[in-house]
């Protein structure tokens, strides 16, 4: 872990790493015919307990009802899982629909429609929600909320106020303003093997963070990088390669080439810096969240280093007691299809306040049918919350009512933007690191 700089040795900083991926790992759990009702039930149970504990401080004077116990005109609070009825939501049944429209539908970037409406469900039943307070475009299916309102004559529930779970409690972050700078580098969407990937750009990135580029000062900064996180979509395979047919030798190599290339580059990083690699949509990993670690047989070179860690997606860890939580982007991308926000960072903030990373799973976002738990429930507030594979680099710092401070990061796709993100562990400050290969 040393960088040879010609005139002496620059020692690379180190930090204490603790993996928190356990809850995202699927070990003993099997597909045994279970359905999705159980994860919804687990979620409702977890979130409701939490919301119930908040109601006495929110609206202590109001009674809490179940959907069944609603009485017309009586003000109360109900807690349940939201279901958004969406006119444009595509369904698998469309594949079987009798008539095809003459002109193919233009796929909208988002399936919202002004007729969408929300329904609240608990074990006792469902009730349609009304009112201007609860905006269907903001909320999604699968979210658990507490609502204040009353039943109308038509049997609907007129919502007057909403209680979301709010930011979870946060462990204290070690505050040492005078301490050392330590950097964490985030990168995503390397897309090795795709047409948009530029091998030179990636090599530049590797050389830069490993300290093989730049002058002494830059090497000094590089030496302060204590962790690299690759947030998904590291490789990309040509489409249609996995159609179940036996592959010719040419295709076999097409399949193994991108991972080989990736392995070579990752070996260079892992040789110097601890490296976490998360699976993403395009990686050779399973589809449903939580995605399980990429298999080590894909990385014969880099996997030999103990600095190389293949992680789950979502991924959570601590570095010097700073807590990280992040995904390769699927949860937020899915929210963006089924709801509206001004930016990706807003979605990020929303999921933290909802205390649920992926409310749309399993409804529109594939996930494992857990039976007794919901790993996407955010129990403790991270200090850093990141998502990979976004259009551009955006960051913000939010503060909670309990003095929680969270750095939100949207990591751009490297293959398209040439940009990685660097964050200082000391003060959570963040900047972009761009690599151009054009020489003007």
């Amino acid at each position, binding site marked *: 872990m040393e960088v040879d700089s010609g005139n002496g040795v620059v020692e690379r900083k180190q930090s204490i790493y603790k993996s928190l991926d356990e809850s995202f790992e699927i070990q003993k759990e*099997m*597909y*045994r*015919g279970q*359905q*999705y*009702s159980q994860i*919804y039930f687990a979620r*409702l149970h977890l979130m409701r307990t939490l919301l119930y504990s908040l109601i006495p401080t929110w609206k202590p004077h109001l009674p809490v009802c179940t*959907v*069944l116990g*609603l009485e017309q005109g009586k003000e109360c609070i109900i807690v349940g*899982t939201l*279901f958004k009825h969406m006119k444009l939501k595509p*369904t*698998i*049944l469309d*594949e*079987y*629909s*009798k008539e*095809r429209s*003459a002109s193919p539908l233009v796929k909208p970037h988002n399936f919202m429609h002004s007729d969408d409406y929300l329904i609240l*469900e*608990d074990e*006792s*039943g*469902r*009730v349609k929600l009304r009112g201007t307070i609860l905006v269907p475009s903001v909320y999604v*299916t*699968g979210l658990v909320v507490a609502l204040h309102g009353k039943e109308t004559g*038509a*049997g609907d529930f007129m919502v007057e106020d909403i209680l979301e779970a709010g930011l979870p409690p946060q462990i204290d972050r070690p505050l040492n303003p005078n301490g050392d700078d330590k950097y964490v580098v985030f990168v995503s969407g390397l897309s090795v093997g795709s047409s948009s990937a530029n091998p030179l750009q990636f090599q530049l990135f590797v050389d830069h963070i490993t300290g093989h580029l730049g002058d002494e000062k830059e090497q000094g900064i590089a030496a302060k990088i204590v962790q690299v996180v690759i947030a998904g979509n590291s490789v990309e*395979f040509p489409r249609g*390669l*996995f159609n*179940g*047919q036996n592959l010719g030798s040419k295709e*076999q190599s097409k*399949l*193994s080439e991108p*991972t*080989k290339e990736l392995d070579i580059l990752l070996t260079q990083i892992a040789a110097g810096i601890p490296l976490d690699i998360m699976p993403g949509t395009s990686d*050779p*990993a*399973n*589809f*449903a969240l939580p995605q399980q670690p990429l*298999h080590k*047989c*894909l990385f*014969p070179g880099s996997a030999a280093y103990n600095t190389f860690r293949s992680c789950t997606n979502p991924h959570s860890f601590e570095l010097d007691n700073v807590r990280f939580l992040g995904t390769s982007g699927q949860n937020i991308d899915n929210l963006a299809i089924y709801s509206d926000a001004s930016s990706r960072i807003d979605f990020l903030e929303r999921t933290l306040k909802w205390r649920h990373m992926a409310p749309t799973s*399993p*409804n*529109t*976002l*594939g*996930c*494992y*049918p857990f039976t007794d738990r919901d790993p996407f429930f955010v129990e403790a507030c991270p200090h850093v919350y990141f998502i990979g594979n976004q259009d551009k680099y955006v960051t913000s710092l939010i503060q909670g009512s309990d003095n929680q401070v969270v750095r939100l990061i949207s990591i751009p796709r490297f293959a398209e933007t040439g940009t990685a993100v660097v964050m200082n562990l000391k003060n959570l400050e963040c900047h972009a690191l761009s690599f151009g290969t054009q020489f003007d």
Partner: protein
Amino acid sequence: MDYVVGDGHNEFLQSSSGLAAIIRIFGVTKEGHSVCCFVHGFEPYFYANCPSGMGPDDIFRLHQILEGKMKETNNNYKAPKCIRRIELVQKRSIMYYQQETSQPFLKIVVALPTMVASCRGILDRGIQIDGLGIKSFMTYESNINFSLRFMIDCNIVGGNWIEVPRGKYNKISRSLSNCQLEFYCLFSDLISHAPEGEFSTMAPYRILSFDIECAGRKGHFPDPSHDPVIQIANVVTLLGEGQPFVRNVMTLKSCSSIADVDVMSFDTEKEVLLTWRDLVREVDPDIIIGYNICKFDMPYLIERADVLGIAEFPMLGRIRNSRVSIKDTTFSSRQHGTRESKEVTMEGRVQFDLLQAIQRDYKLSSYSLNSVSAHFLNEQKEDVHHSIISDLHNGNSETRKRLAVYCLKDAYLPQRLLDKLMFIYNYVEMARVTGVPLSFLLSRGQSIKVMSQLLRKAKQKNLILPNVKQAGSEQGTFEGATVLEARTGFYEKPIATLDFASLYPSIMMAYNLCYSTLVNPEDARKLNLPPECVNKTPTGETFVRSNLQKGILPEILEELLAARRRAKADLKEAKDPLERAVLDGRQLALKISANSVYGFTGATVGQLPCLEISSSVTSYGRQMIEHTKRLVEDKFTVLGGYEHNAEVIYGDTDSVMVQFGVSSVDAAMKLGREAADYISSTFINPIKLEFEKVYYPYLLISKKRYAGLYWTNPQKFDKMETKGIETVRRDNCLLVKNMVTECLNKILIERDIPAAVQYVKNTISDLLRNRMDLSLLVITKALTKTRDSYKVKAAHVELAERMRKRDAATAPNVGDRVAYVIVKAETNAKAYERSEDPIFVLENNNPIDHKYYLENQISKPLMRIFEPILKNANKELFQGSHMMSKNNCTPNIGIAKLFGKQLSCIGCKTPISNSDHTLCSQCKGREAELYCKSIANVAELEELFGRVWTQCQECQGSLLQDVLCTSRDCPIFYRRKKVQKDMEQAKQELDRWNF
């Protein structure tokens, strides 16, 4: 105070004292109060011919003889007088053209409606009258239902507003019915308002939609003698209002509450049934609807109450203390075929079974509530298997709630279908147009409607209809409609279609074809009619022209079509959606009625067949099609100054397809219009050839089988239209339908024949490689009777038997639909032995019989499509490398099982020792590649797993409850099952990598 009463239903009643028929009219007022009106004074009667020379004295004698005979044949008639009176009236028979305006007829008025038939019998057989000898009488209008007779004579139609003026009615002191208003009056005091203007509004009918659940025993279809009724769900709606105002469910044993629904739980079945009876009485619905209620729910409830000995249950009608009874009826009609059903009469309430209505009006591949709602409402219905129903019922109040929710949905769906398809509007309009009561429309065929119109019209003209003895089909059949030889092929130039607008009605109008204009061959000679006054039809019949005497049928048709034009014009103006619904229903009813007049004259077992008319109509039709073809091909030629020679490629009953040779749709439309106008001018008014549409491109497969894109404006096609092509046949698997549709899409819309061929090849290849979604291969057939009563061995029957041996509880019963796939078996196994339950196939990996699917399912329909297009269609599609079968899955039963499970290499399937875990020595080194394949497989399955199971959650309308649905009609049912199983396996294989 005066009442406006909508007529729902009427029938007669014998009052015990006066021994006269009393008509009961049930209905609702504008305000929604139910009404029962007893109408007195209307007497049953019929006509008979008056033999020449019969004087008043003879009539008196006839009266006495008849009276005597009546008493003799039936001493049950306790009436002092059976024959009230016999009058001599001046009428004319509708049959044959006659020069005299009228002749004397006998009008025989009897005491009770049932006496009409027996009196007719006596007269038919002939009676001895002193001085006249034995005379047999021809009777007229003696086979008319009494209530219809009343309606005709009082000018009342179905769904009519009736007014009873102030002071003309009396309240009944001791009420006989459960209606809110009840009174009696004299028939002559009724004022019928024609359904126009303010009286065209719909009455605010109260509609009850219900569904019952029964706890069947395992392996048996519910049987009222054993299985209890456990739940009844009800939804009550007021016609024209969007939301139901009552939703409730009655359950046996406790049931958790359901939001927005009144749940009533009882400890005994008796209470459930009686509560339901009370609900029916209290809600007092005018119309009771449901799905298959006539054959299942209603009879079940009544029989069950009978088994339980609840005598007071079946009093569901509007008349107090009158029991509902069940009768087996068969309804047969030429149009709809024969259907057996049960008739449950419920006084004052119309039962409207959505299943029957949809079977009548729509041609679907399946009529299960699930597929019907998928078709019309675009949603899948959750289906709970009857073996699960008992489990749910025997669980706790939560599981019973689950069942109740399901039951409620089934009660609400018929209501939604009713609204969506606007059945009430269409049927009430039909009743108004044709003048029959609403209940006739469902229980009787087309002919009663025409009969009703004919009688009404004849009454105005002082004509009477003879009662023709049923001659059976002896009169023989006549030549049907012509179809011009189809020049099959794929036409890539626009094909203009010239249609005759309402061809048969127009012919009847143009040539004045009617009973009353037909000249009897004998009369023809006698009368010596001038040739300018008659038309000789191509079949040699003679009809007088309208200048001599206008026919009744043409007049009825003219009125119908004029009314339709008016309705259509009003429809254009109308803004209010309800008003539009009524008008649209009306114009449709008018169209159907106009078209059924021709059928009425041709129905040999009908009320008044007249083959002279119907055969003349078709012969004129044939002539016209040929005439059109000749004119088009003579006029539109290069010689005639046109760019191309026109060619008639096909002609159907009332349309002719012409290829003008031009290549643009616009030009074809211009020529089409020109041709239509030109040819129309050569026809007698109102026969008119219209140009409506262009097909481009057009694939003509054979007679009555074609497909094409349908253009009505030159910019953009409207839709793809197919006729007679396998897109909806139910004994085909879904794969056939999908392939046909996709091929037609590729050929007609994308205009890419090679792509269509490639698609077929790919699909065949997928089929051979076992990569086909099993649900696409499932064939379903209804198990209509027990195995023994099937004469030949059929695949689905044999399978049902085998399934019963495996597990009697889930095996299909008579009445169920059996789903099966054809699997491989020993070489000489018969087809019926190779049928297998799709679930069983999924669980045991049985290999699919590809050959069967290729040869018996997909080959013929595809060949039909491709033959006109490709030269060597068979070679192109069914020969080549894609036919090489590669993956044959091995069943995990039989030999494989004996040897236990040995690991094989994931890469090359070579058996490996257990210590090697994953790969054989040869495949080591290919780990990355092979792992990628394994994981890609898992990823694909996971994605599918998520999509199908969340879809099922959406259909069942709950996230927190397990999906129970076992609807085999649902396209994703097998996929759902398969992905669950595949997932398990794929996960196991993946786990082998983690050593």
